[in-house]
């Protein structure tokens, strides 16, 4: 009964007003209305999970006086969400969590949006990409895999990924270029589905995020070959067949010179004041310090780089350039629509 009581109290606290909020009095600006956290992707995806975890953490630890509301605006590969925040001039009660579609969606669809229309707040983490193959396939190393792809006629090896002209397909094209062969890229709606298609051998390899494929790895159904980052992932806890995330070599060290990480960051509408940005930066610093956040980072083997301000903005700027080049080379730019 006591547990029920505490649960109800929590629900009440969440739904009415977080009375016991404990923010330093020095904060110059504070939300006066519920804050909307826009997710430019569907319910159940990686960004959505992260947003809802943040919402849960903020509620549980009473980090804000006003409630945080998660809203999915996934239309047009997230374009709907970006345009919504772009038009939220002078509305400090709207923030957005982004993924790579911050760059790819405007480039591929030609919608009138650029990340510079928004105000960068903070980078929360970077999501890794791993090259996965079915565990029943003979290739144990990147070299085996590359040899097999080269030996097969162009286009007969199938690569599965999430979405079209987005991060997964960009990596696929980069791999094609590095190997000098062609894949057939098959887009699916979500990362979980991609992983299952790999287990069912409907595709030959994928570039899933760790969190999307870890269950199948632990079940011995898929095998990671390499990670598309500059250094191996930091988590050395054992995951499957005596290996941990840390034991997956970088693709570069295996002769596949490609690096790609995906931004999980927070932006807010244009014309945000410094006080407002500072408020959110402080908030997310507190979120990152909670054990729940660290659990999420560990289960998804995230790269936990944290950036704010000018450093963050210049990182985003570089990434935009890179995406533009990559997408141009791949022929993914919108042809005037």
């Amino acid at each position: 009964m006591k547990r029920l009581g505490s649960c109800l109290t929590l629900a009440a606290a969440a739904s009415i007003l977080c009375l016991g909020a404990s923010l330093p009095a020095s904060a110059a600006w504070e939300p006066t209305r519920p804050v909307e956290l826009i997710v430019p992707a569907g319910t159940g995806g990686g960004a959505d999970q992260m947003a809802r975890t943040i919402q849960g953490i903020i509620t549980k630890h009473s980090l804000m006086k006003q409630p945080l509301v998660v809203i999915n605006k996934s239309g047009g590969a997230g374009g709907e969400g970006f345009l919504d925040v772009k038009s939220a001039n002078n509305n400090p009660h709207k923030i957005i969590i982004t993924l790579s579609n911050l760059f790819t969606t405007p480039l591929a669809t030609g919608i009138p949006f650029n990340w510079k229309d928004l105000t960068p707040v903070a980078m929360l983490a970077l999501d890794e990409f791993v090259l996965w193959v079915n565990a029943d396939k003979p290739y144990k190393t990147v070299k085996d895999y590359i040899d097999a792809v080269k030996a097969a006629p162009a286009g007969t090896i199938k690569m599965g990924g999430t979405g079209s002209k987005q991060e997964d397909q960009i990596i696929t094209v980069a791999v094609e270029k590095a190997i000098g062969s062609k894949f057939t890229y098959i887009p699916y709606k979500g990362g979980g589905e991609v992983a299952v298609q790999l287990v069912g051998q409907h595709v030959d390899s994928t570039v899933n995020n760790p969190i999307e494929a870890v269950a199948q790895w632990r079940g011995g159904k898929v095998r990671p070959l390499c990670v598309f980052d500059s250094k191996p992932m930091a988590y050395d806890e054992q995951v499957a067949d005596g290996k941990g995330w840390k034991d997956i070599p970088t693709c570069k060290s295996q002769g596949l010179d490609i690096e790609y990480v995906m931004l999980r960051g927070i932006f807010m509408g244009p014309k945000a004041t410094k006080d407002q940005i500072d408020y959110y930066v402080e908030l997310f610093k507190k979120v990152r310090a909670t054990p729940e956040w660290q659990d999420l980072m560990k289960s998804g083997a995230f790269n936990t780089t944290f950036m704010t301000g000018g450093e963050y903005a210049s990182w985003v700027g570089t990434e935009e350039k890179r995406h533009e080049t990559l997408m141009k080379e791949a022929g993914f730019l919108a042809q005037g629509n």
Partner: protein
Amino acid sequence: MEEIANLFQGFAVALQPFNIAVMVLGIVLGVIIGVLPGLGGANGVAILLPLTFSMPPTSAIIMLSCIYWGALFGGAITSILFNIPGEPWSVATTFDGYPMAQQGKAAEALTAAFTSSFVGALFAVVMITLVAPLVAGFALRFGPAEKFAVYFLAFCSFVGLSKEPPFKTIAAMMIGFALAAVGLDSITGQLRLTFGSTELLNGFDFLIAVIGLFGLGEIFLTMEEGLRFQGGKAKIDLRVVLRTWMSLPQYWMTSLRSCVIGCWMGVTPAGATPASFMSYGIAKRVSKNGNNFGKGEIEGVIAPETAAHAAGTAALLPMLSLGVPGSPTAAVLLGGLLIWGLQPGPMLFVEQKEFVWGLIASMYLGNLVGLIIVLTCVPIFAAILRVPFSIIAPLILVLCAIGAYSVHNSTFDVVMMLVFGIIGYALKKCNYPLAPLVLAIVLGDKAEEAFRQSLLGSQGSLGIFFSNTLVSSIMILGLIALFWSVIQNGFTRLRTRTAAA
């Protein structure tokens, strides 16, 4: 058997007082979510997900899955009372449920819907309990080609049913396909049919179309006939429930067939929507009351509800064992599992026994609790129809507007809802069937996506749809369903000829 022992341990977990309280709370919240259009199961679970963080994982998932059951039950209520389905899989329930309500048989329709939901879910849970590991592997065999075959079968078992002129049926269905195509093309990542408008980026959500076409269209039709609502004289007491129950066993064949269809669709995982349409279509063909379907035949409520609930429940199996969600709601539940550090997948059944069997036990109990709660409320729900039209109509209109708005938080959608309402009124008056249109909106883009994914994999060869026994047999079933009336005619002719000879 080890499973049974595990299950009893699961019951012990689920029967803890705290978990029972959580269960009841979840069901009630779920019914509210299901009744309010726009707050569908997926949204509802997503919204309430953060509230469960402070609970132990087993209690939390029990609560969330009970919200899911509640929403499944609740979806039928608005479908039957106001012709407004809150979820794609309740669309087929309106076809006969709403006519029944208009004839004053709302309580019967609700009882039949709730009971068949329960039967469908129970069947699926039993299947999960007994054959989980066997069935889980089946989902792996479903690639894009197999999925397309399933959608094809759903369309085939449904078309050719309407009595309207064939070219009007075709036109209506094609309008649905065209509306489904608006927005981002998921295969090429390109925008289409948006004509540069940012409002159209999203395409047309099924819910907005359905609220307009069915809900508003119906209110306009009622206005034309004068200010009355035929359901007003509905008799309301709990004895109706018992009386309806007495009549249900004679439809055991329909129920069983719908259960099997539902489980199959849930496991594959094509989901509850094709299951409900397929089940309705097949029931109409096979039933001896087939001609009454669409005019308020109780069997037309039983078939889709049983299948939808069986599929909705069975969809949790691939979610737990493979980590692939069978429905949007399951996708959100999946996110919840990850947040609690439970990794769905092949190892979940091995490593988290207490959790898995607690959840399965809660499926039994949650559905039972849900059935009891909603059945006792049948008279209350049916009494809503007694409220005078000039009070209930503006309230429904406002709720529809809220529903349309909260799908994408866009006021443009509210305008679209009204446009669809006028279209629905005009089309209905001009004898265009609305059901194929809605079916096409709901399944159109998924079918196209699966079709094109298959062709990508086969490098353009259509042979992929007959490349193995599984996909070929589904496709052939679809073709049989499509030409069923022709085949049937042929048989009768053959029989009369042999009889004559």
